[in-house]
């Protein structure tokens, strides 16, 4: 349930941006979620609704932009795309991979009034 704490951080960002960008209501939050980011999308949606209740983002839509996981295969010595931490290298089947991207959680865009 750390999604609750993550949604707290998202609400913080919205409130700060509301002051800086002079808007009073958030309609949509577009959030980039990496495939390797240890976040459960449904839990994120549920907690977002709970956390934003009574705030400038009450009822706002949460659009998740899914980003593929990226890794470096030590055997193939080249970048590969992986769907999760358990996935083997799609080229050689080895688990000798190091995550290089797709593990972030970042607000990309807000639709506001």
């Amino acid at each position, binding site marked *: *349930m*750390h999604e*609750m*704490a*993550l*949604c*707290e*951080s*998202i*609400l*913080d*960002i919205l*409130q*700060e*941006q509301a002051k*800086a960008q002079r808007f009073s209501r958030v309609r949509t939050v577009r*959030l980039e979620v990496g495939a390797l*980011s*240890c*976040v459960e999308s449904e839990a994120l949606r549920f*907690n977002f609704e*709970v*956390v*934003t*209740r009574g705030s400038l983002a009450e009822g706002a839509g949460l659009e998740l932009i899914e980003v593929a996981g990226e890794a470096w295969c*030590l055997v193939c010595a080249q970048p590969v795309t992986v769907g*999760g*931490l*358990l996935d083997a290298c799609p080229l050689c089947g080895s*688990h*000798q*991979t190091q*995550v290089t991207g797709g593990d*972030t*959680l*970042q*607000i990309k865009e807000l639709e506001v009034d």
Partner: protein
Amino acid sequence: MCNVCGCGEGEARVEGEAHNHVHEGQQIPWALRNPGGNGGGAASGRDLDYGAGPAHAHAPGLSQSRMVQIEQDVLEKNDRYAAENREWLSERGILALNLVSSPGSGKTTLLTRTVTDLAERYPISVVEGDQQTRNDAERLRATGAATVQINTGKGCHLDGHMVGHALERLQPAEHGVVFIENVGNLVCPSSFDLGEDAKVVVLSVTEGEDKPVKYPDMFHRADLMLLNKTDLLPHLDFDKDQCIAYARQVNPDIEVLEVSATTGEGFAAWYEWLEGRRKGRLEHLAGDLELRAARLRAALSENG
């Protein structure tokens, strides 16, 4: 925003020297009006309770805590606190290890034995994270180790901000070791950097051997897996080799040591690992200081 510690307006205050200010117009939070109120017991004066507010959580919406910061990466704020902790520890030559596991893995027993055995070798302090009780902190304090309890309420993990305040309170000795015992949970603590040198995941052989693939994030981020309760192996149907293979599947670099916190078996290797990490930390600091001294000498000779 509070410019002493960066706490946002309305955030719960923690009883203690380093953080006893109250903002104008701010209500004194429940945690301060009822210190130690979480169990009704006597307050030790050293506990940090993030779950003592009306919502019994440190998370918002339900919480007494609300920060206002500029950031885009959702975890950026936590990472900033963690980076401050890391720098603070680094400049003092302190090795910090974040112990993570599911509940019941024997983490506190393992830590109690470790602290007792190593007390004479170097200074050891403990940051003890739990949702509600201070039972584990009391077990650790009984060993003589300086311990600060953090209660998270319904929060499922420690974060960089909580640990920063705990370190301020703890004031761990230079060149020593700080153990951070995280909340028993193999999911959430993996996402939150605390500023530690390494995560050490404790997995007991009474759990399923597939825990590393069920909870891959935690094992992916850990440097060391301590496979605990090995004294029970003869009585169990636990495939140790398969467990280690699973751990290496999600993290090819993870080191594995087999231990029994009950009998002490395997602890010599664990202490050796710790000593190696501590030496690495001190050598790194010594290198930094030598570099700084060389720069100062160069500046002196330029002036001369």
